[in-house]
């Protein structure tokens, strides 16, 4: 990859910056970092589509400080070496894997310091490689929560990764998704300069606020998948930890009733989190609980989580929820739905490989943001799609019948928007099957874009190739001009956002 520099010189130079223990260029290390989240088969070397021209990074580096990042970026500019920033490496669009051959993989998980809690701005400052679990743990010591608590069940994802991928997730319903809670960012630009956004642009300011001092520059780096710079520090709002919680499960007569009721509850800010289910494996459990005829009902279950700082307020919220549910003729599950094994407030949820194992195949998720009221329409498209005999034939490789795919909307955002998630699973043990799955996955992603969904997965693969086709030339040119201006040597995560390839 690095034409003017030998591999040993590259490694020596990086070791000079971060120390030998923080650099690894062994084959096995490089291939480990060639893959991010595997559920979507977007991995060099593992699907036919991607196999031939793609490869692992040249080297993995673990900076600890902003100065380290600055030095690495300046060095990379000198030799025009691509840099791929990586947080938890759990993003589904392979934004943090080296889909172009080679480059420096910047593993940011050692930039994980909790810097401080500032009671004046009620915000916390930390290095961007801190994981959600660690951040929540540190804040708990102050009796606080970041509100939004990271993507579902993924305690290992980094806060910086979430900023860069516009993450939705736990308690987004109440507090808004991650980026709605960001106050300031510290960014190392692709040419190695460091900027502070928001209130900190004024060097005399020591409190945290997102806006003022000119344009909202933090927004430029949100959802940018590292194409415009590396986020090294960030500030998030904090909230007192609510003391009182409750969970409910309602079954609505139709998906439309379910979505209308949830939208209404959300408009009064009654819920902290929820999980709407349309079709799939959890649905089978609900059918069991309510003694419904398997596969015959079209009812919409919804798990709802409420929380409050005061018992009476919680009671009032729950009463209002009950009133709205009754208006939409919902049936209430008599017991504690968390005993069903899944809750809306899923800080206990662990969405690991066990889910793939349960299905007997690799899961291919297609998550994007939709208004709740658009979900029934999106679901209808899926129902039709999965009725196609050709698709059914493909999926039947797992012999799991209608358990092979599911649709759900686990809250995730505020103001009537939701993370709409459909997924199917397929045997992934041969390259041929993975390639088929990859194509099928892209077929769904393409159609979701046609139906106007807003993807937050915009790394190098997934929705990106389909999305860019829908941009106006003016929008697309604007993005490209931004990239060229900020990153003249095109070193910053080439391929992310479809830019700089």
């Amino acid at each position: 990859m690095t034409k003017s520099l030998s591999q040993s010189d590259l490694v020596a130079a990086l070791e000079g910056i971060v120390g030998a223990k923080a650099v690894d260029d062994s084959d096995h290390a490089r291939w480990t970092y060639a893959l991010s989240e595997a559920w979507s088969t977007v991995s060099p070397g593992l699907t036919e589509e991607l196999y031939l021209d793609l490869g692992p990074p040249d080297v993995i580096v673990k900076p600890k400080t902003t100065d380290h990042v600055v030095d690495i970026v300046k060095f990379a500019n000198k030799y025009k070496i691509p840099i791929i920033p990586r947080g938890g490496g759990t993003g589904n669009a392979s934004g943090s894997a080296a889909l172009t051959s080679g480059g420096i993989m910047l593993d940011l998980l050692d930039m994980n310091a909790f810097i401080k809690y500032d009671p004046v701005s009620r915000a916390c400052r930390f290095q961007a490689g801190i994981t959600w679990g660690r951040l929540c743990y540190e804040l708990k010591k102050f009796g606080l929560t970041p509100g939004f608590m990271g993507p579902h069940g993924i305690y290992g994802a980094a806060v910086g990764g979430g900023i860069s991928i516009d993450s939705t997730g736990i308690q987004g319903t109440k507090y808004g998704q991650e980026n709605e809670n960001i106050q300031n960012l510290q960014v190392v630009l692709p040419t190695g300069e460091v900027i502070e956004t928001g209130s900190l642009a004024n060097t005399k300011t020591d409190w945290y606020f997102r806006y003022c001092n000119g344009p909202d520059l933090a927004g430029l780096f949100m959802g940018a998948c590292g194409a415009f710079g590396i986020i090294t520090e960030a500030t998030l709002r904090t909230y007192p930890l609510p003391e009182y919680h409750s969970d409910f499960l309602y079954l609505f007569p139709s998906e439309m009733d379910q979505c209308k009721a949830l939208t209404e509850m959300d408009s009064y800010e009654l819920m902290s989190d929820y999980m709407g289910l349309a079709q799939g494996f959890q649905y089978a459990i609900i059918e069991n609980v309510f003694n419904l005829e398997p596969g015959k009902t079209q009812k919409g279950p919804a798990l709802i989580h409420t929380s409050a700082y005061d018992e009476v307020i919680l009671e009032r919220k729950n009463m209002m929820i009950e009133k709205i549910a009754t208006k939409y003729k919902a049936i209430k599950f008599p017991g504690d739905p968390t005993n069903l094994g899944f809750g809306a407030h899923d800080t206990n949820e662990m969405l690991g490989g066990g889910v793939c194992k349960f299905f007997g195949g690799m899961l291919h998720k297609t998550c994007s943001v939709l208004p709740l009221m658009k979900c029934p329409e999106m679901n209808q498209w899926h129902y039709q799609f999965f009725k196609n005999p050709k698709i059914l034939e493909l999926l039947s490789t797992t012999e799991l019948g209608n358990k092979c795919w599911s649709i759900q909307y686990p809250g995730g955002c505020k103001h009537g928007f939701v993370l709409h998630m459909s997924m199917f699973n397929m045997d992934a043990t041969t390259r041929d099957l993975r390639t088929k799955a990859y194509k099928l996955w892209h077929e769904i992603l393409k159609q979701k874009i046609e139906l106007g969904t807003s993807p937050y997965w915009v790394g190098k693969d997934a929705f990106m190739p389909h999305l860019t086709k829908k941009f106006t030339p003016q929008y697309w040119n604007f993005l490209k001009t931004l990239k060229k201006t900020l990153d003249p040597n095109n070193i910053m995560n080439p391929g992310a956002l479809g830019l700089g390839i």
Partner: protein
Amino acid sequence: MGVMKLEEFKNEVWFCGCCSMCRETVSKGIADKHAWVGVCPVYDVLRFDHYTSRGRNTIAKYLLEEVLEYNQALAEDVIFRCLGCKACEQICTPTLVPGLKPIENMKIIKAMREDCWNMGLVPQKLKEVCMNILDPEKNNPYGLDKELREEWAEDLNLPKQADTLYFAGCAAAYQNQNTPEAVIKILRKAGQEVAYLGNDELCCGHQLIWTGDIEGARKNAEELIKRIKETGAKKVIFSCAGCYNTFKNDYKDMGISVPFKVEHISKTFLPILKKLELKEQFKKKVTYHDPCHLGRHAGEYKGPRKIIRRIGAELVEMERSGKESWCCGAGSGGTCLINYPDLNQEIRSRRIKEAQATGANVLITACPMCLKNLRDAAHENKVEMDFYDLPNLVAEVLGLKSEQYDSWKG
């Protein structure tokens, strides 16, 4: 080529969703159903993804695809560096839907080690341990004389035949002789006589299994089980967590039938303690270290804690305990201790400091390997604590302190 055993776990490998929870999840005080503060001790020190199960499963995918090949560097750097502490498998049990099962990371790592063994890629020091175990003149991992094994039992006149047999294991018999002696004294005080194989006892083969010499382990296990059967024992009791788990789970996984009941002494001692009068209460603030092979591997968390409470001690848990406990760093069968001493030293230092932070002045565990490793860590870090293997503690409160060995505290 060369991924024969791993091929059997192809599905498992592909089920790993690379979700990253097995890397360094922190959930203590955040989730109510699990309380992790970090997961993989090796990652905690070395900080690269390839040291985690997530990373190793990724490497396994590339091995299965023949993008990567097994080689010495991969074996030494990654495959043998894992402690086998099972934390990564424990956390990979999602609570989303009842019936979900974790990725069997321990079977995957063992399969990779077996492939390495078959290809001659095992680190030399571990190979030597295996040779010692299978050497008929030694039968122990330390390369010591076979005849020294029963030295601890010399004055005890233990029978060779009884309904119950005590399996002392190599670590206790050779390195921590006051532990087996304590076991026997306690049982005798309760009126129970147990058989002991003496010099006919073989190593359980724990290290063979964790080094990948499965054929060697199988032969060794079959011979050992034959010898135990000849004693007529219907039950075998263990004070070593590693030996206990080898009999309880590993042999089963290898398809070897174990025709007797197996029991860890934490279960044996509890009714004894209820029956016998304590000579004195153990009125101290103590903490308990869960050995990985007794806890996560064999599922025994409560027994030792009940014993500790029963003797009147005040138990203060470390920040990471039970299912979310932190390995002492020795690694399965001491593989890390033997092959990666610096890594082991760093991990054990972190654990002993965690023990110190409880404010307890006594550390109790139920595995001779953990005991030795943590005691060494205390020494290195100048941590002032007393150390007890569970049998020694029970013996002390029953007034059975040994005269033969000068220190019950190891």
